[in-house]
């Protein structure tokens, strides 16, 4: 009897703690959405329900910011993030296939070296990369954000290699019997069979590219027609706060997280897998 009382007590405490935490997690999002539907005069009101309710801020975002800047920012974020996903998937998958399937001299050394680079903080590469890109004349263009996505990476390669290793070897032998080349085996056997891992990695890479602040800040800090949403929002924070238009700023913030929210609710499983696996990163 006392045992069940004890359990009920623990249950109540659990729910109380979890609900309090959930509220803390949610309130910033609720507030963001709430402020974005208010009239500017109400921006600091403590009422959660906007009164009056307006969608004017979303129009202002596209109209009041000069030269359709917000459209450009959104387009740029999509463009850079999608290209980053394509680059990472292609180059990491090729390397992962070679490391997982092919036998050649120096394989184990090269793979160990690649994995060891996980320990190098990204800030260490930033300075020499900036110098190289500066001499190539790429500062102020989107190339420094896109090109490195096409030179592989330890995290993606490691993750895909682990998955490739679970694919039965008989498939390789059978494909060989049919006269398939190395690249055929990669392209027609391994890649199609690895959709779950590719999906998880794509989502993870997309999220990282979409949310990246440091790199676009270094390479594309000022031109609002070329840079990304993150840099744009950071810039507007200073601009709009001066004009006292938090309502428009929150509309921008909400639109900027919307694509990831949609992906998250559609593909929650892959999303969580990708982030759980990301533990291997960094």
């Amino acid at each position, binding site marked *: 009897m006392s045992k069940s009382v004890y359990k009920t007590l623990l249950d109540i405490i*659990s729910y109380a703690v979890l609900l309090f935490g*959930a509220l803390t997690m949610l309130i910033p999002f609720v507030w963001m959405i709430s402020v974005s539907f208010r009239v500017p005069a109400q921006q600091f009101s403590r009422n959660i329900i906007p009164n009056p309710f307006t969608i004017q801020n979303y129009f202002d975002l596209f109209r009041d910011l000069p030269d359709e800047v917000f459209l450009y920012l959104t387009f740029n974020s999509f463009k850079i993030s999608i290209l980053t996903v394509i680059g990472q998937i292609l180059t990491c998958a090729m390397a992962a296939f070679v490391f997982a399937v092919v036998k050649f001299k120096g394989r184990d050394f090269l793979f160990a070296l690649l994995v060891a680079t996980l320990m190098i903080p990204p800030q260490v590469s930033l*300075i020499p990369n900036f110098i190289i890109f500066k001499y190539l004349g790429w500062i102020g263009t989107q190339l420094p954000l896109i090109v490195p996505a096409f030179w*592989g990476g330890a995290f993606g390669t490691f993750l895909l290699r682990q998955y490739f290793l679970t694919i039965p070897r008989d498939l390789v032998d059978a494909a060989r019997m049919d006269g398939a080349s190395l690249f055929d085996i990669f392209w027609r056997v391994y890649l199609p069979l690895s959709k779950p891992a590719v999906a998880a990695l794509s989502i993870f890479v997309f999220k990282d590219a979409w949310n990246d602040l440091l790199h676009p800040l270094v390479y594309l800090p000022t031109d609002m027609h070329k840079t990304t949403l993150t840099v744009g929002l950071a810039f507007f924070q200073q601009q709009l706060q001066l004009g006292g238009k938090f309502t428009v700023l929150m509309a921008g913030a909400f639109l900027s997280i919307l694509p990831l929210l949609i992906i998250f609710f559609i593909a929650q499983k892959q999303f969580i897998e990708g982030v759980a696996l990301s533990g291997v990163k960094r």
Partner: protein
Amino acid sequence: MDYGLKPLGREKLWLWLMLTPTLVGLVFGTVGSLLATLGLSLFDWDLINPPHWAGVENYVQLFENKDYIEAFVNTLKFSALYVPGVVILSLLVAILLNRKIRGVSFFRTVYFLPTVTSAVATALVWNMIYGKETGILNFVLERLGFAPVCWLCTDNAMMSVVIVNIWGAIGEGMIIFLAGLTAIPRDYYEAAMLDGANELQQFFSVTLPLITPSIFFQTLISAINAFQAYDYIYMLTRRGQGDSSVPVAVYSIYRNAFHFFRMGDASAQAIQLALLVAVFMAIMFWWERHYVVYE
């Protein structure tokens, strides 16, 4: 290891073609740039005039540079608050969710939201929440009878920034701990129950020892993230000239390299950051060998 497919004839070429992007990445992205940063740290260079040989001078100066020392100490302080915060809170959430409670998937989704969304966007709203006169946090505090707090003033900014960073990281830790908790075989709990252990005793005798690999892992990841923390700090504490009210090491690197164009100093600081990560990892792996229980 002796697994693997032998490349036939011209396939050797294909093999290296498929590896080329990765090799380029090793040369320009990681190994090469580590060496380049090491080299740059021995010069004074503003990217305009020719580089000047400085030897270890840049490293010696780090110990005399008040701004840098402040940034480095801030990074350590930040980590000392952030790492235990993330590990303990995300472990707590995972344990509560693992109690076969109703609405697990709802809670999991909600706790995970800040991990999905960009620090830039959520920092904008945190900035409003922290507002001294207008923020809802102070509004709630005043209603509860406390004095309002200037959350983002110099004295409190560190604490406020740590809170937001923890808020943004609990979801990720929760997932890692949930994976660790569900991997514990049920037999252990059944054996403990037969011995008459209640839920709390089971936690200390079964769960905690068997979850040490996840704790180790999450501590490692959180600390590496803490050493590199940047986004929220930039968004919540920046002032003019790349300055901040909570300058941390990454801030200092960024500022020296891209505001003042002191490539030598910035490189020396980046190397020191890499060393900090390396030393920390060495300590952690030593700790792992002695204290982490693997089945």
